[in-house]
């Protein structure tokens, strides 16, 4: 067993699960979406992206691209949350929250792609 592979798989899966955990629930209900989970998803996604740096093969490149997309989406979601909670006069309304959650849902899709690639890679390796 390769420890590097374990860490790699761990972070990719964790990025996807945290993302899913944040997105799961009613789209605009603040009680269903914890901002700390969004924070954790951003951090883990950043680490997952950095882990993918420098992988030359084509699969590695797609991996990195998927992660970059996820980080971008989550970054946008964070910005929306920031402007709603700190800048806007009305605070975090359900409309804002819907924006944050839908952006994170986009990131979730990219994370799922990452996981699928990871699984596909593992399967081909077995063969």
């Amino acid at each position, binding site marked *: 067993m390769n420890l590097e592979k374990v860490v790699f798989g761990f972070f990719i899966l964790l990025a996807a699960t945290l993302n899913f955990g944040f997105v799961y629930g009613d789209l605009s209900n603040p009680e269903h979406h914890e*901002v*700390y989970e969004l*924070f954790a998803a951003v*951090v883990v996604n950043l680490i997952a992206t*950095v*882990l993918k*740096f*420098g992988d030359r093969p084509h699969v590695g490149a797609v991996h990195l691209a998927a992660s970059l997309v996820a980080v971008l989406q989550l970054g946008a979601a964070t910005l929306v949350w920031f402007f709603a*909670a*700190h800048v806007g006069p009305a605070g975090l309304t359900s409309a804002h929250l819907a924006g944050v959650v839908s952006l994170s849902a986009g990131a979730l899709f990219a994370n799922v792609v990452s996981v699928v690639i990871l699984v596909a890679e593992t399967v081909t390796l077995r063969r």
Partner: protein
Amino acid sequence: MGSVLLLTLRRIRVPIILLVSVYAVGIIGLVLIPGVDPQGRPWRMSIFHAFYFLSYTASTIGFGEIPHPFTDAQRLWVSAVIYMSVVGWAYMIARVLGLMQDRGFQNALTMHRFQREVRRLSESFYIVCGYGETGAILCRALDRMGLRFVVLDIEARRIDEVDLQGYATDVPALAGDVRIVANLEMAGIGHPYCRGVIAVTSDDHANLAAAISTKLLNPTIPVVCRAMTREVAQNMASFGTDHVINPFQRFGERLWLALHSPAVYRLLARLTGLPGTVLAAAEAPPHGRWIVCGYGRFGREIIGCFDREGLEATIIDPRAPAGGDGRRVVRGLGTEAGPLREAGAEQAVGIVAGTDNDVNNLSIAVTARELNPKLFVVLRQNLEANRPLFAAYKADMTMISAEIVAYQCLSIVATPPARPLSRHGGNARRGMGRIARRAAGGDRRRGGREHMGRTRKCCGGAGGAPRPHVRAARAHARHADARPGRARAPAGLSAPSCSCAATRRWCFPRRRRRCSPATACSSPAPRRRATGSASRCETPTSAPTCTWVSTAPPAGCGSA
């Protein structure tokens, strides 16, 4: 660039992850630890404020405790976070600096830059393999002629010299072995604008490798190679290397020509001579008994040349073969009077100091002249650094291998018409015969026609009729006209060349003086005249087409 960027990111993966983790942990701690606002109410930092606080604290800017003064519990946590983040940043910076100094990384950067420079070349260029003495002379000349080139040399030190030389154009240069095909490919061997490969490294086998790589990867472009031995030269020629230059053999041929027919030799020297070449001998070498010091590659060529001319020669060499291939042999260096006397220096007419050691050669020459001041001295200079010594000695002929190769390469690169005159001894002789006849005034008609043929070749190898020839001449004229200072011949036409100018000067000086200036050639009236007279070219007395060529030498011809 992509690969370099990825390489950089890959190397700083660990510090980035460390920093992300430190920040995340710090933010979580700050958010979880409760604070107190000025009114004494409990207060919690938001994620955004924690991130802001950490950003200015970890980067040692330190705005203070914002928005409210911290509690002691918060301060304890912040102390821990400060140490973690400072260590994280220090690690990151150390890693980046280490990466910058990393050899592999620098190589990747250099290689990438070189590849990009070569890829972006949008005009004809040559690949010069080997930037030694020959390569440096060649590159300086190519640069003066306004031609682009790419340099490949195995030694990084020489590549640095390319940068220091201060060429007019940017010269992509790479430190790499020409025997490695990937290096040649990076240098643009398959580039659509690559016009030829010039292999002048000091290693015959590297030149051979460059030649065969070129012939296999891009057979359409010509290869010019230096070969120091006849075996390698034959090997190169066997797979179609376009020009193989053996400086020893070439000098032997010149010496033979000077011995055999001094007048032709002088004429050739005037026609193809470039400043400082070995050809500018003041007087012809005398017939009689010669002494040859050094029986290596050079010595053998010289002996061969004496044999052809039927001259007797004595060899002085410490390692000469027993019996000296049927010649008189004196064992020794020739730097002392003893062996020279034994070889008969007092009675000899000339001496060739041709060892591979410059100091020994000079010593031989000085000693020999002391014994016999009337000796004709042929001196071999090996290193460019010793030039002042050789210039001070003033030998009757000096053989500088690097210059012979460089000028030969240049004449091939720049003046296709000079090729039949000087490529091989046989051709040279035939060419010389023609020139001699024409110079003597006989056979005007044939001479004129031949010259036309040659000039036509010079102007881009246009077809048989005189018409394209005139057109090419006009193109030349327009070009020269458009760029008066420093004209470059268009890709298809010949580059500006000294021997080209010399040929024209020699051919029909009278006509040329009468000709209108270059600009007139593009106006309709003279064009008709030119065409008309070209058709009358067959008549014995006139060959005026040439005058139209000679009105439009590419600028720079005369100066060189």
